[in-house]
């Protein structure tokens, strides 16, 4: 193994925070199982989530592998049609509801929100633990649905197929999603109250780190949107059991009503998935450019704008369903409105880098990847908000490529950036920069190889959710599967070097990267159980790297 140390040197403007004499921190102060399973400490709850969502990610990834293997050849030869349909349904449900939606908020948000605002914990610690167990219960129920035989409706559950025709375990899965939805609602509620009421003295709204703004915006969406999917799934369950005709046209119902109710949540849901990554990117770019974030206020407002606009564009998923052309035009115009705040963020981050002092640690490499891939993903959304092109591209692989660019190239890269950035704070250890950068690079290459060909496939007309396809689509599918194997390697590597670092990594000091936010300047790595020895008092705007005498906190 290479012994070249590529780690950043300590930024000496922020002296090491000295911890307690006996070196106790939130990880080692109590080793018992019950202290972990019944913890009220937001930091430990964040770690509980980290373990469970990683397991779900691996399962979702394995399903993706099965899908890509099948798509190597035009004929259906690896899986049966039914198994394939269940595989892509499970892949979508697991990745969206059990990985992406919780990922940054439940892991990084739980860990960091109180630390970044100078609080001892979130507003409702017991509710926080309940959120985790709801997530866990929801996962168990969803996995039960899979083990019983799976669901073959697609993660979108369109009626009347899901309400009347499908012979799979729709209701069990719907219950699992209902339960995990409440986990999401309660986490969002907790963060909102925490940010409103638990900020330390001097921490006004416009002194908050941009990560907090993005978590706040995400929480608002979680709070308001998730109940609607809960009740929609409830109605679907009622229709399936009682056969009543809410969505079945043979019984007087309207199948398009389901789509409106479904997408009213599921579109804002994608903003739940991307907003936190946007916040992480602000933090990472600021720290590793050693410079304030350009246009702080605008970036904060743009997060809120994305959350709000996200609620009024849902029917852009339904342009071909037969909605009135006038409605289609309205939703098309509104959809463009979401692009603008996202573009503003990207340009502001570039301006942040301009004139900065940029270092190429692993988190920054992931942030670079995020910049490129989120830009492409977001721009390809323009093809879809434009009515004239959406008709041709709807329900093709173009859509698949578009959302994977945003959710994998964007959200997951942001998540990886955040995990790598805050790993020293969470674990008190440094991981290997060499392996970190290598896996970031492999992931970036593998990702593009997997999903770029799919834009072309979609334009050529290859529909989604096909396990057999005409021969002319094979070349691009082979490229895509080849890329997926590289991507799989890139995603597996952190499991090894991060776990290794947890046990054997070099000890980190309190601020190895020179961050300016409270979690770096006022807590040890890892933090003590109650976070701060003394409540911080904030006196200036964030991302201030000038003429500092940071508080030397000692016990």
């Amino acid at each position, binding site marked *: 193994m290479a012994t070249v140390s590529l780690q950043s040197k300590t930024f000496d403007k922020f002296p090491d925070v000295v911890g307690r004499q006996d070196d106790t921190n939130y990880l080692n102060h109590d080793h018992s199982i019950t202290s972990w399973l019944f913890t009220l400490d937001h930091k430990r709850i964040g770690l509980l989530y980290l373990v469970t969502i990683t397991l779900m990610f691996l399962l979702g990834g394995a399903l993706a592998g099965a899908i890509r293997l099948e798509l190597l050849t035009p004929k259906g030869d690896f899986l049966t049609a039914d198994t394939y*349909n269940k595989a892509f349904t499970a892949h979508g449900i697991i990745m969206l509801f059990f990985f992406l939606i919780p990922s940054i908020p439940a892991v990084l948000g739980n860990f960091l929100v109180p630390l970044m605002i100078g609080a001892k914990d979130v507003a409702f610690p017991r509710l926080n633990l309940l959120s985790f167990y709801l997530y866990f219960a929801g996962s168990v129920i969803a996995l039960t649905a899979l083990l019983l035989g799976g669901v073959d409706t697609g993660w979108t559950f369109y009626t009347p197929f899901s309400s009347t025709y499908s012979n799979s375990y729709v209701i069990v899965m719907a219950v699992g999603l209902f339960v995990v939805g409440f986990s999401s609602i309660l986490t969002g509620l907790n963060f909102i109250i925490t940010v409103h009421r638990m900020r330390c003295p001097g921490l006004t709204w416009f002194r908050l780190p941009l990560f907090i703004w993005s978590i706040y915006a995400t929480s608002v969406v979680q709070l308001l949107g998730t109940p609607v999917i809960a009740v929609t799934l409830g109605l679907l369950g009622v229709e399936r059991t009682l056969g009543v005709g809410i969505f079945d046209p043979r019984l007087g119902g309207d199948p398009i009503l389901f789509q409106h109710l479904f997408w009213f949540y599921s579109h804002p849901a994608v903003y739940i998935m991307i907003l936190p990554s946007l916040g992480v990117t602000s933090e990472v770019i600021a720290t590793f450019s050693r410079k*304030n974030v350009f246009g702080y206020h605008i970036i904060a407002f743009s997060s809120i704008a994305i959350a709000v606009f996200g609620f009024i564009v849902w029917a852009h998923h339904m342009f071909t369903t037969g909605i009135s052309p006038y409605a289609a035009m309205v939703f098309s115009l509104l959809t463009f409105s979401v692009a603008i705040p996202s573009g503003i963020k990207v340009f502001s981050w570039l301006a942040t880098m301009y004139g900065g002092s940029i270092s190429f640690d692993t988190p920054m490499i992931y942030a670079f990847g995020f910049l490129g891939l989120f*830009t492409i993903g977001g*721009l390809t959304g323009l093809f879809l908000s434009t009515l004239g*092109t959406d008709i041709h591209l709807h329900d093709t692989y173009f859509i698949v490529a578009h959302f994977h660019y945003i959710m994998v190239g964007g959200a997951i890269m942001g998540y990886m950036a955040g995990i790598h950035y805050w790993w020293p704070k969470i674990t008190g250890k440094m991981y290997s920069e060499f392996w970190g950068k290598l896996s970031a690079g492999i992931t970036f290459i593998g990702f593009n190889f997997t999903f770029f060909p799919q834009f072309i496939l979609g*334009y050529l007309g290859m529909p989604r959710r096909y396990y057999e396809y005409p021969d002319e689509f094979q070349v691009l599918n082979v490229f895509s599967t080849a890329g997926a194997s590289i991507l799989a390697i890139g995603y597996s590597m952190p499991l090894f070097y991060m776990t290794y670092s947890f046990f054997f990594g070099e000890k980190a000091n309190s601020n190895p990267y020179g961050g300016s936010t409270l979690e770096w300047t006022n807590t040890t790595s890892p933090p003590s159980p109650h976070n701060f020895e003394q409540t911080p008092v904030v006196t200036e705007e964030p991302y201030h790297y000038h003429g500092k005498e940071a508080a030397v906190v000692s016990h």
Partner: protein
Amino acid sequence: MFEEFKWLPDQASTVAPEVDMLMLFIVVVTVVITALVGALTLGFAIAFRRKSESYIPAPWFGCIPLEIGWTLIPVGICLVMFSWGVKVYSNIVIPPADAMELYAVGRQWMWKIQHPEGQREINALHVPIGRPVKVTLTSEDVIHCFSIPAFRVKQDVVPGRYSSLWFQATKAGTYQLFCSEYCGTEHSRMIGKVIVMEEADYQKWLSEGAESGQALQGRKLYTKLQCVTCHTGNAEAKAPNLEGIYRKHIPISHIDGVKIKDGTKVFADDSYIRESILYPNAKVAAGWESIMPTYQGLVTEEELLQVIAYIKSLNQGQTPPRTEETPTPATIQNKVPNKEVN
């Protein structure tokens, strides 16, 4: 695998080049902005790489002209895309008035297509070059999606209602027809071929093995199902005269059994005719009692399309007499014998 490979889809309809131009514009915008962001990221990363641990860059809080610029320029580009998109979209969804009408029924897992002249096809669609074609679509079970990538058209096929798409083919050849809305186990096998032919070849194909015309089939049903018992078209009729009603505004008096404002009219399109056959009480014509029985469960979707095609073709004086075998609609003379009701 390589022989069949192509980068770009065929352009085989009038609207395809328009869609492709718009795609090209958005591709250019995407490439330019991506290249810009990529170049700046790389450029800044190199130009401003960390050279000294103690160097603190000066903060830069904002620059109004720059921020206005990078807000308004994207807004402008988006507005261009939006309006261009609406223009192309209206060309995609608004059919010309003289379009030839075809009917397609989607069901798990096949497409059943009917030509007005009577030709029926399964998973295949023959069309002539140069004539606008409108396909009226419905589903027998779940939601499907009728999609012809080479024509750049697509429309969801929803049970319980009619939808439509139109196209005008411009290039002879064979193209893919896909179902583009997941519909169950054999969704990926619900594909077909669109065969575009020269007009002469198309006529030849039509005359080979064509069953009797759509409207003639509908006429047979009109008598078999006893529509003609009440809709006789004469003074003793118990039901409104259906001659020439297609695409007219019909005054109605009751909706679902509830009396409504006088003078309310309904537009008698395909959907209205279908609704009246299946749900006669939905919109009752003014001046008539609602005594029509329903045909739910007594007609298939295809038969419905045939009856509707017949009613659409029904001109003044053409309602058939009640109890005789008559030849094709074109040869019916004006007079309808005054037969007694049995």
